[in-house]
């Protein structure tokens, strides 16, 4: 039966902040402390994370400017207006490929970590297919529902993180954090590069902007959205160093999950908190994945005007699955990860900055 709408499909600043946090918190944070500990002494990685957070916030603000300059218009259309039609197609294709790879990497990561913490015998491909099917089901629904899912899962994820951190206080040894500020700036910079990868994803706003309510102040929402993951990452990193020391963190692949493993929750109902923790973490990886898929679908549909949403999803899902299954070993898997992050720098920073600069230079009408 046809439904009537209350006009609730538009999103406000709370939804924008939640959406940005949800897509940013994903697979990246699980390995981040390990990456940082590899080449940053002591606990100085926090500078890198904070630096990366500032960069992300700055790029986020650029994106906000871009979307408010062309309010109510889709990304593809205003790219076309700023530059030219072929360029717009190329740019949309870059985003389409980027989000597709993002999805592939996420489903492969889910399978890898599940295998490590939940079961040993189930093949990677089965785990991935199950996850992908759930993502596909979500993307089949309405856009508004997809954003509502962020609201449903993000509080649970943050809550469980807070619980783990509260109980981890007794394990943390502040002495492990000392001495402070002994890392060379160049190393901090390379740490920042690692940290920015875990913070990618805020460019999603480019594709959800047409849904915004007219008077929404996206800048504030963007800053809050970026701040939540940055604070979470800082805490996780510091905890990880304080509990496992730098040397230990450098040896553990998923320090974030291991913190949960060390935690003893009073009452002792669950012996191994890390399974519970990771299980809940699947929700946020799911959020990132389905928003990435949705963004990718909208890119491809902008390029191929006649493409049906369903057809597009059906074409995309086997492709992303195949890409996700391509890496045969850990090093290839890491290569896929770094490929995603390199394209990510382009999509999150370079392309929006260039677009905004061009639009400024051209002057042009502010609102189409």
């Amino acid at each position: 039966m046809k439904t009537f709408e209350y006009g609730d499909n538009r999103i406000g600043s709370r939804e924008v902040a939640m959406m940005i946090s949800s897509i940013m918190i994903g697979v990246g944070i699980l390995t981040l402390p390990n990456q940082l500990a590899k080449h940053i002494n002591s606990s100085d990685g926090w500078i890198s994370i904070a630096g990366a957070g500032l960069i992300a916030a700055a790029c986020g603000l650029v994106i906000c400017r871009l979307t408010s300059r062309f309010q109510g218009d889709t990304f593809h259309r205003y790219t076309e207006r700023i530059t030219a039609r072929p360029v717009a197609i190329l740019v949309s294709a870059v985003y389409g490929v980027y989000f597709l790879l993002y999805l592939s990497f996420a489903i492969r990561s889910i399978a890898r970590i599940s295998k490590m913490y939940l079961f040993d015998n189930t093949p990677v491909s089965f785990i991935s297919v199950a996850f992908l099917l759930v993502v596909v089901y979500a993307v089949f629904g309405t856009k508004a529902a997809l954003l509502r899912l962020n609201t449903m899962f993000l509080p649970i994820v943050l809550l469980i993180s807070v619980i783990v951190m509260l109980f981890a206080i007794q394990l943390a040894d502040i002495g492990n954090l000392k001495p402070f500020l002994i890392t060379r700036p160049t190393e901090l910079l390379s740490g920042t590069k690692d940290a920015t990868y875990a913070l990618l994803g805020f460019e999603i706003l480019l594709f959800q902007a047409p849904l915004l309510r007219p008077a929404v102040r996206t800048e504030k929402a963007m800053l809050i959205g970026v701040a939540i993951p940055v604070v979470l990452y800082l805490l996780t990193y510091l905890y990880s160093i304080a509990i496992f020391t730098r040397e230990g963190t450098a040896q553990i692949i998923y320090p974030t999950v291991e913190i949960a493993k060390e935690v003893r929750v009073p009452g002792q109902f669950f012996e191994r908190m890390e399974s519970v923790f990771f299980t809940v973490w699947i929700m946020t990886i799911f959020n990132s994945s389905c928003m990435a898929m949705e963004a990718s679908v909208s890119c491809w549909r902008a390029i191929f005007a006649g493409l049906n949403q369903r057809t597009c999803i059906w074409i995309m899902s086997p492709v992303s699955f195949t890409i996700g299954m391509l890496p045969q070993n850990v090093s290839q898997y890491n290569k896929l990860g770094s490929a995603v992050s390199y394209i990510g720098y382009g999509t999150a920073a370079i392309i929006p900055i260039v677009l905004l600069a061009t639009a400024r230079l051209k002057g042009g009408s502010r609102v189409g």
Partner: protein
Amino acid sequence: MKEPKAAVQPAELSSSLAENIEQIRSKLGNAADLLVSEHCSKSGVKYAVFCIDGLSNRLIIQEHLLEALIGSESDKAELPVQEIKSTRRLDDAIISILSGDTVVLMEGMSDAWIVGTKTWNSRSVEEPQTEALIRGPRDGFTESFRTNTALIRRRLRDPNLRFESFQLGRRSRTDVSIVYVEGIVNDQLLQEVRRRIHTIDVDDVTGSGFIEQWISDHFLSPFPQIMSTERPDKVTAALMQGKIAIVVDNTPFQLIMPMTIFSFFHSPEDYYQNWTISTVIRVMRFGAAFLATFLPAFYIALLEYHHGMLPSQLAFSIAGSREGVPFPAVVEAFAMEATLELLREAGVRLPKPIGQTIGIVGGLVIGEAAVRAGIVSPIMVIVVAITAISSFSLPSYTFAISLRMIRFLIMLAAALFGLYGIVLSYIVLNIHIANLMSFGIPYATPFAPTFTADWKDLLLRAPFRLLTGRPRMMRTKDKNRMKNK
């Protein structure tokens, strides 16, 4: 709006009395329960009186109507009754006769008088069977349309309370009424309810369940998007929140819409008790719903995939109790849960005194015997019992049965993928709920989309002093419940 076509062809009454009598008789196939009597007044005018035996109040007809007709000395009798209208159409007259009214025809006049004499034996107002409360009114809806509307009117003496009545069903001609409070309800919502209900064009409207399923947004979903209730206090409370009720004849279950998932966790008792108690009980209900849906799945996942997650003491005692059980936990859980559902179904079907016996026999004897025989483990019996208790503690029966069904799907997911399967099915459940709408209102409101003002009456039940406004999500015209706020 399309007027449903009448089963009887539209025709005018003629001015000849004999012809009219013949017409009506033949249309009703010379029904045995049709009472036709012909009378002649003092002034010599001929009248005919029609009614259906058993649907009309014979006392009114005998004492007032017939006496007035026979005693009349003018050309046109004055009828001393309260409810009277006239019609020229034959089919209107026939439908009125069939609804229990009395039709009076006069020689030489092509107008029929319809006199309201509907009375039939109906159940008296009793305590609702499915929604019993400890503290709260004990009157429930009955099968009689008029009693039900009166029960609502009695609680709400607001002149703005509206009953929009009409008949649905080409043949059944069931009385249906859209109930709302003018000045509170959102007009768009009201329009939509009207539009949907007038799309119903079938020959038989069998109770409110049919209407519910017909006008729901998503008929494929297991979740109820409209609440059915036997309690008039629930209906009036909903009306005051800007919701709309539909009262249907021949059923004690009336409908309230639109509904969000959280309203199925609320019971009217929450408002009759102290807010602290109500809040605690509400939190417990959410926990109960979670257990009723996920507990057997957790049992399967923990035993089949993640033994390590349980504390070792507990793991040992479970392993010890499962010693000698020949089936894997999946088979055990499915068998026991299916037995439970069967028992529940059997308990409903059987006459009341035996129903209770079956519960005891089933629950205690079969459970005990199964454990003794080594078919299931005692832990499994505990799990099944907790699931059953939890699902009974939910205030809405329709919501509880949809959770019962979903439980089996989640058990299947747990059997395939363990904890990973459970979390995936939890996500799928959430996706489904996020996509559901009830009359355009997302099913997870006010949580997602968020209306923080409405959270005072969500998981919490804040003290009445704080509940100053109507739910924001309903977009009511009148936003406040209290003055000076």
